[in-house]
């Protein structure tokens, strides 16, 4: 009997593991395909052979320019920003045990956006300054929300309310800055309202890419403890997790990635919110879904950008598409949580 139960548990675990690996690899393959599509498609469609030759350094008239200056930066921006939004959003949602507690809803992306807009429109700063300022602003927003909502006992409801308040103020700052910077053309303005890959430049990308490459391993390793953290503070401590340290490192890494992604592409709506729940649906629970969530983020951003570029007569920036796709899901989730009485 005992042996039978053990076998059942082990085989169940094996099954979940298999599902996780399968889903993760499928997501990775899909992401790869979308990356290729981003490079192949455009005003002129280049065959795969040309793209590979261009990427390996060969000069082809027309194709080199289109791919090197326009499509490759766009693809890389979408790839890394999507991964950052997806993974960091998942970490927040899991750590706070509430899918609504993600950087989009509680104002962290607004903090980074406000800082980036301020740097660009008021002090006309570029690259590094914008990145640093948006990271600092993102962290400051997190700290502010945490300090204000701490109280005697932690309440997720209070944290979200405080976040909504902070976000209202930051959004007011952003719309004011956009209004006074009258020379600013509308595309730039919209980038900071909803996120866009238009006009991504190669030299703007390194901070984001480096941050994702350095920070995501930390998140993947520590993310394994998140399952234990989810059991509650005391259980996690008794199971040997340094809860405070884990949490702080995870928050720092997540905010760093989110802030740099926001500084590069603007706050692409709802990606950080959607990725976690979708990844959980696909890959199941039981293992850390940090990697699947990141990959879902990549797929969402790239697919939405392709839809925005080619599906309509007008070219819509990626944030509009993710916004329209994400909004009904947010409302559905809210209704479901209300029904279950989770709030």
């Amino acid at each position, binding site marked *: 009997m005992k042996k039978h139960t053990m076998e059942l548990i082990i085989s169940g675990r094996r099954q979940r593991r298999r599902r996780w690996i399968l889903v993760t690899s499928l997501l990775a393959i899909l992401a790869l395909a979308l990356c290729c599509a981003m490079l192949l498609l455009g005003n002129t469609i280049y065959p795969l052979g040309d793209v590979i030759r261009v990427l390996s350094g060969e000069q082809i008239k027309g194709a080199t320019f289109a791919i090197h200056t326009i499509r490759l930066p766009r693809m890389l921006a979408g790839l890394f920003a999507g991964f950052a939004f997806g993974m960091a959003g998942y970490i927040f949602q899991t750590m706070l045990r509430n899918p*609504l507690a993600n950087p*989009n*809803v509680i104002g962290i992306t607004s903090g980074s956006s406000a800082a980036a807009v301020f740097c660009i429109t008021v002090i006309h700063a570029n690259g590094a300054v914008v990145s640093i300022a948006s990271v600092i602003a993102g962290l400051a927003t997190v700290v502010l929300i945490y300090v*204000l*909502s701490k*109280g005697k*006992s932690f*309440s997720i*409801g*209070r944290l*979200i*309310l*405080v976040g*909504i*308040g*902070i976000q*209202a*103020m930051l*959004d*007011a*700052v952003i*719309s*004011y800055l*956009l*209004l*006074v910077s009258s020379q600013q053309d*509308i595309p730039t303005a*919209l980038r900071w*309202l*909803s996120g866009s890959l238009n006009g991504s430049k190669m030299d703007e990308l390194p901070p984001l890419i480096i941050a994702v490459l350095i920070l995501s391993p930390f998140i993947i390793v520590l993310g394994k403890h998140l399952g234990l953290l989810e059991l509650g503070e005391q259980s996690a401590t008794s199971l040997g997790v340094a809860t405070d340290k884990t949490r702080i490192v995870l928050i720092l890494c997540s905010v760093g990635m989110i802030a740099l992604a926001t500084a590069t592409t603007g706050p692409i*709506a*709802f990606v950080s919110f959607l990725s976690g729940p979708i990844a959980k649906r696909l890959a199941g629970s039981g293992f850390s879904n940090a990697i699947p969530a990141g990959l879902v983020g990549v797929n969402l951003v790239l697919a939405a950008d392709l839809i925005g570029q080619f599906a309509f*007569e*007008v070219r*819509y*920036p990626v*944030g*509009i598409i993710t*916004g*329209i796709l*994400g*909004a*009904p899901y*947010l*409302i559905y989730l*809210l*209704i479901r*949580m*209300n*029904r*279950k*009485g989770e*709030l």
Partner: protein
Amino acid sequence: MPKHFKTVLFICIVLLGVCVLASLTLGSRLVRWNELIDGLFHSNVDSYGANIVRKRISRTVFSLFCGAALGVSGALMQSVTRNPLADPSILGVNTGASLFVVFGIAFLGINTAGQYIWLALVGAALTAVFVFAVGSMGRGGATPIKLVLAGAAITAALSSLVTAIMIPRAYVMDQFRFWQVGSVGSGNWGDIGTFVPFLAIGILIAFITAPALNALALGDDVATGLGVRTGVLRLIAAIAAVLLCGATTALAGPIGFIGLLATHVIRLILGSDLRFVIPMSAISGAIILTISDVLGRLIGSPGELEVGVVTAFIGAPILIILAIKSKVRSL
């Protein structure tokens, strides 16, 4: 009558006077006393200062009216939903109005205030119903946190639609950009004329329903026992609230947090009897909006800081304080 009612009324009226004076005289150009007198009473004097004062009269009246409308609308929403955090901006009602106005500008080719108003009202009403429906599902009915979250979610959803409509249409964006921040700067006598009927009807309904709403505050069962038809009452009061905030949003753009600010200041001093809270919220709303407008003009000088930005900065901290102070269980 609440203990301090007369004192509060007196202070409010004095403040109101100060606000009006400040709004007429302060701004990117200060107006001297004799210019103020000229502008107000001597219509034949044609000096620069006097003309500025005349321009500012309509703006001041407009901001007083908008503030009063938003204050009363907030008080009504709070009592209909029995929720201290209800406010047209927090519940997403303003965004609903925005969406319909943008839709009108983009697809129906509307461009006058009189046309904005009807669309804004429809948008505000539909959003209010939807937010309340989503927020009141499940156990415990419409708790503050559920309503606020429903409002935030629907705001996010509707704003993406707004942006999607605007992007391909630069002219809509340009028309909308200035409207969206929320400003009373464009207030002229035509707008005020369009606005007054809505304001009058809304406030009248608020006054008439105040005693019954007091009963509602005791709970639906008690209210029914006292002979109040709760469903009908809620509907009428909600219509008034939507009339007030929808009309304001149509003309001035979405100005946030006035409802929250105005009523909470008054409740703190006068208690919760709506027969006094509603009229005083009107006055305090007018004061707060006008002061914010003046502040915006002073801070933003030589241009101006739109009043919507100022009220977000004054109002959001109040939301945060309320969130911190209320007990965890009541959230």
